């Protein structure tokens, strides 16, 4: 397990704001958030609906641009990157796990999981070896050729996790990853991610209000009205 206190910074924000222009009054979804996430962190970002969790997560992942403020992934400031550079950043440094799994329906489980490696030009043999090893580790043996429609919710989310971590990103951003799963499946999935965090040092940042996720996290940030209300570390 990584010693987080001495680890490198995986992500850093400085006074990040997201304001949506709206009549009669603009909506301030995220208000001046400054945050540091270290390599190996296993942390949650909780808060009520509308507190700005997903908006902040999208900005951290380079999916949405902040209205103002600065964001760094490792040493790279991403705020001023072009769309093409942001796409490259997402490909190489960030993994995503979504509430709705969001697997590509036209690809098999294996093809979904290896997608980022495929885009990076990793040779087929290496791709397959890495994905098969990961599938074995997270309990997806024998399901490589199945299309998402033929997988259960838990299996789909495991494939999504495999897709997020297979490229060894700087961090994995997971938006309500257990919201669509039953408690047993959620526990199993969280176990998989915990193990990846322990054994590989993969950094996880969850947006959630699932108490089971928060219980397992080492650090819990709470957002209220777009601002950090608390930041607790075990």
């Amino acid at each position: 397990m990584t010693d987080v206190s001495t680890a490198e910074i995986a992500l850093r924000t400085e006074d990040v704001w997201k304001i949506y222009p709206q009549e009669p009054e603009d909506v301030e979804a995220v208000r001046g958030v400054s945050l540091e996430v270290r390599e190996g962190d296993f942390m949650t970002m909780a808060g009520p609906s509308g507190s700005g969790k997903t908006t902040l997560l999208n900005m951290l992942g380079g999916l949405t641009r902040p209205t103002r403020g600065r964001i760094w992934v490792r040493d790279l400031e991403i705020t001023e990157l072009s769309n093409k550079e942001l796409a490259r950043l997402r490909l190489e440094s960030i993994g995503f796990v979504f509430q709705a799994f969001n697997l590509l329906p036209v690809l098999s489980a294996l093809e979904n999981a290896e997608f980022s490696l495929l885009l990076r030009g990793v040779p087929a043999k290496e791709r397959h070896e890495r994905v098969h090893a990961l599938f074995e580790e997270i309990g997806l043996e024998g399901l490589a050729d199945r299309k998402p429609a033929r997988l259960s919710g838990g299996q789909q989310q495991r494939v999504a996790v495999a897709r997020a971590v297979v490229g060894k990103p700087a961090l994995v951003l997971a938006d309500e990853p257990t919201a669509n799963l039953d408690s047993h499946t959620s526990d199993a999935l969280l176990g998989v991610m915990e193990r990846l965090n322990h054994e590989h040092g993969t950094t996880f940042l969850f947006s959630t209000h699932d108490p089971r996720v928060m219980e397992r996290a080492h650090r819990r940030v709470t957002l209220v009205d777009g601002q950090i209300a608390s930041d607790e570390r075990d």
Partner: protein
Amino acid sequence: MRRTPTLLRLASRGVLREARRSLLTSSAMALGLALLMFSRSLADGGHEDWINTGVRMGSGHVLFQAPGFRESRSLDDRLSGDEAEAALASLAALDERLAPLATTVRLSTVGLASSASSALPVMIDGVDPVAESGFSHAAEAVIEGRYLEPDDRLSAYVGTGVAERLDLSLGSRFVLTAQSTSGDIEGQLVRVVGVFRTGLPEVDEGLVHISISTARSWLGAEGAATTVGAILPASSVVDEVVSAVRSDIAVRSNFGEDDVRVLSWQEAYPELDAAVRIDDYGDYVFHGILFAIVALAVLNTVLMAVLYRKREFGVLQALGLTPAETGLVVFVEGLLLTALAGVAGIILGVAVTWGFFSDGLDFSFFMDEEFTFSGIVMDPVIVPEFRMVHLFQSFVSIAVVGISASIYPAYHATKIDVGEALKFE
């Protein structure tokens, strides 16, 4: 470039995944293409029939005349024997592919036909009976008696209208009067050996054929001709033939445009040319409307597919595809649908056109009587004709429709808000 196979795979699987949508979209395009091919080949077949009838009713696809004859119709503007021979020699020198199916030499003038009961202005064509019988539509339209024969000296072949108005029957004698090359008015007694009916009133009531040897001696124009005409294998080779015979006649016999004028059928029969062009424009408008409808249908389905798959495209971008690559996936999907539709459309178009209508489409059901148009009698049976250039144009048209209809959805896919697209609903 290394991502191209991945993008192609995503696009092809996208097409296959939405099989019903893909099938509907490509069916609309394929039907449009098949309809275009059928309608285009029907129009081409119809036009070729018009032209063929028109040039056989007149003086051929390519004509040689003295400058000014077309305007004056006077024997003063005639080809000398040498010039007529040079014209025939230039036609004989053409490649086998361009070689005429039939040629004719005519000495034509306007004159008066008089019988005991009446008189009528007519066009008098002095013709070689053998050459003319394989050339002229009028020669084939005999309804009574026979066409002229080589030994006929004082025989005349007249339109049914001429026979009726002059009260002539087979064996009747009447007098043709015209101005000779010396300027004198000369008369020639002839006897009716055949009556024809083309269906065109201006021809049936105004044309008389006599032997060219009779015409030459009667009008004092030994060896001369007013027109040398040729029927070609197809109207599409006319420009090539005109250009070839123009240079050949200049080189071989040293005759220039001031001596022998070479005319294409378009120049000789501008009304027929205009009729074909107008019909073509009508077809283009029809095809334009057809393709606009097909394009809107394709645009609608492809755009709906993009909107429906917004989340999928958001995921692709979250995973590292650039907006341009996402648009490319949509665009390639459109191209694949177009290619699918193109192949299906061509097969369908060929099958419909040749499979069902290889013997021609009979429109006589819609025509109670003979239908004349721009100086020709329309054949109620139209045989579709494939022209490679129009087949190619049809395919290009459907490709343009497919590509155009894919551009906006592809652009739309590049502009999606990834954060919004990924929101859970």
